[in-house]
């Protein structure tokens, strides 16, 4: 179950530049972020930590991000998770419909994803507005810390 007082986002991309930009853009996010770099890692973390929101690149090493999305959405423990799939490759209406209907994503994003787009996703899925003051309230956890914290709830 998610902890509404400390929402958890899992960000998945094999591009470290994306992780650095997203971490900076979401510095004022009033919750926790964890980062994964391939599909298998994302699936494992998703099952253990049960994030409230998964933001994943579609094209990932080891396991397609869209398959990660679909798998987690179809498992009872993670079915309530919100999922945003981002892609630079699978662009256009056909891929958008596929992401939303076949892979069960809630949101489909075409890269590059800007900080404004990220916050729009958070507002739509977690109903959390972007803080006006740019104070850093986000705690970034290692995957192990996130699992341990969730297990204690």
């Amino acid at each position, binding site marked *: 179950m998610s902890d509404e007082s400390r929402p958890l986002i899992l960000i998945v991309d*094999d*591009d*470290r*530049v*994306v992780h*650095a*930009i997203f971490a*900076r*853009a979401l*510095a004022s996010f009033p919750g926790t972020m964890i980062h994964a770099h391939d599909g298998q890692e994302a699936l494992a973390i998703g099952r253990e930590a049960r994030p409230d929101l998964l933001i994943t690149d579609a*094209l990932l090493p080891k396991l397609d991000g869209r398959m990660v999305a679909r798998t987690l959405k179809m498992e009872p423990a993670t079915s309530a998770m919100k999922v945003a799939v981002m892609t*630079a*490759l699978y662009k256009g209406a056909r891929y958008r419909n596929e992401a939303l209907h076949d892979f069960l994503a809630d949101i489909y994003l075409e*890269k*590059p994803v800007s*900080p404004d787009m990220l916050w729009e996703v958070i507002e739509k899925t977690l109903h959390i507005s972007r803080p006006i003051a*740019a104070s*850093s309230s986000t705690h970034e956890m290692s995957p192990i810390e996130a699992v341990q914290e969730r297990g204690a709830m």
Partner: protein
Amino acid sequence: MFDETQPMKGPARLALDRDSIASLRELGEDDPSFFSDLLAVYIQQSDLLVARASEALAASDIDEWSRAVHSLGGSSRNIGALHLAAVCTAAEKLAHASNGAGSFVLINRLKIEYEAVKKEIHMLRAVEIRHPGNREFPPLFQGIDLKEV
């Protein structure tokens, strides 16, 4: 029409898009080391991706080549290396369309573009280290016509 296989002609151009760089600097407004660190991450990652792409092409592994240039293109776009990103996109499309034929031409173009990006990044980082938070482009960059030809 832009031809990714040919050297650029006309006025010199920057390898990094000014608006993208400005946006990244603005993003790192509260963190003086963000911009410089981000560019360091990009170079470290991209050195590996260019090496992977070269090795894949030499081994005729078109799938791996395609994955490497796709990743390099996406990352490059994020830091404003738009011309390099365009070369990567062209390389990826060519790989899929022709099963790798012609990719050797683009790997050379890609390497030239990447070296230009690295050079500019090193200059930007050098300025950033000496003048943290400085939003101005260094004098070296001023007076250069930014328009594509």
